[in-house]
């Protein structure tokens, strides 16, 4: 097996088991699943282990970017060839991991999920507006021609992943990844994915004002 699914998780005990087994059963890929438990205070770790994932735990919460980086380090260390980033809150459809991997094998360095050429179920209007603005911001700053931005569903060739510099601990890492794709001139493409906004994911997800924090992180650091 040489595909590793990396799932950063912070207090996702309620959903993580379902997400892990979903990936296992529906991705239709021979993959190992790594949950990076980012200092959760609930049963995230035990639920993930129960569901059959490998779990690495941060002693304290350091942010999604940091958790992702730990997962990347692990994938490199264990000689995986492909990494698939997946969210812990159940918004993504595990069956679509197959499409991302398929596309990656056509010779891309990275395949990004896009909800705008895919399907979005019940996205709140406020999220729509913020995503729109973020998209414009990303196009301007990274120069990438994307239809979606900050989509956590991504498939990476480890050879490309090991080149990117990722030091944004919190949510700004999503923009940083895109900037790195642009800087390293990686071969990228988008694949439609379904993002399902549920009450759970909405309650766990980004608050709008966090956009300002992200902008601050990007501009100042």
């Amino acid at each position: 097996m040489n595909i590793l699914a990396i799932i950063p998780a912070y207090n996702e005990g309620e959903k993580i088991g379902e997400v892990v087994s979903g990936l296992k059963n529906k991705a239709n890929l021979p993959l190992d699943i790594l949950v990076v438990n980012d200092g959760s205070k609930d049963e995230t770790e035990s639920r993930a282990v129960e569901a059959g994932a490998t779990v690495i735990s941060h002693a304290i919460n350091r942010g999604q970017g940091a958790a992702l980086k730990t997962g990347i380090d692990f994938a490199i260390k264990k000689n995986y060839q492909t990494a698939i980033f997946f969210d812990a809150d159940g918004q993504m459809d595990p069956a679509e991991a197959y499409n991302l991997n398929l596309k990656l094998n056509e010779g891309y360095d990275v395949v990004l999920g896009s909800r705008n050429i895919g399907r979005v179920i019940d996205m709140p209007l406020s999220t729509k507006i913020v995503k729109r603005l973020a998209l414009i911001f990303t196009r301007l700053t990274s120069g990438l021609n994307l239809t979606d931005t900050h989509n956590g569903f991504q498939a990476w060739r480890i050879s490309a992943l090991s080149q990117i510099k990722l030091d944004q601990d919190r949510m700004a890492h999503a923009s940083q990844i895109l900037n790195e794709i642009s800087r390293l001139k990686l071969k990228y493409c988008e694949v439609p994915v379904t993002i399902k906004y549920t009450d759970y994911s909405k309650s766990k997800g980004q608050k709008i004002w966090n956009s300002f924090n992200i902008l601050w992180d990007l501009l100042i650091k």
Partner: protein
Amino acid sequence: MLLIQIILVAIIASIISHSLLRFKKGDLDFKRLSLWVVFWLAAAVAVIWPDLTVLVANYVGIGRGADLVVYVSLVVLFYILFRLLIRIEKLEKNLTKLVRQRALEDYDNKK
């Protein structure tokens, strides 16, 4: 002396004595202690003889001594704030590095 002057001088005196105590305990090195003490002595002088600040203010082209004190304080505050932000950022990065390293080591040790 006005009441406000007495209060301010008392506060400054206690800050200076606190700094000296911390220097004795080794929390503060001599360079920082001297900077800090000079700063607060200057503040005390400005409180006791406010006319002096007017002299300096006029010399640099500002009308009132109090205005000069506010301007200078703001600049100093912003500078310190900036330094602190950078320091905190560095601490956070180092902390993350440690947490991530330990998480990976813990995993290896568990096996």
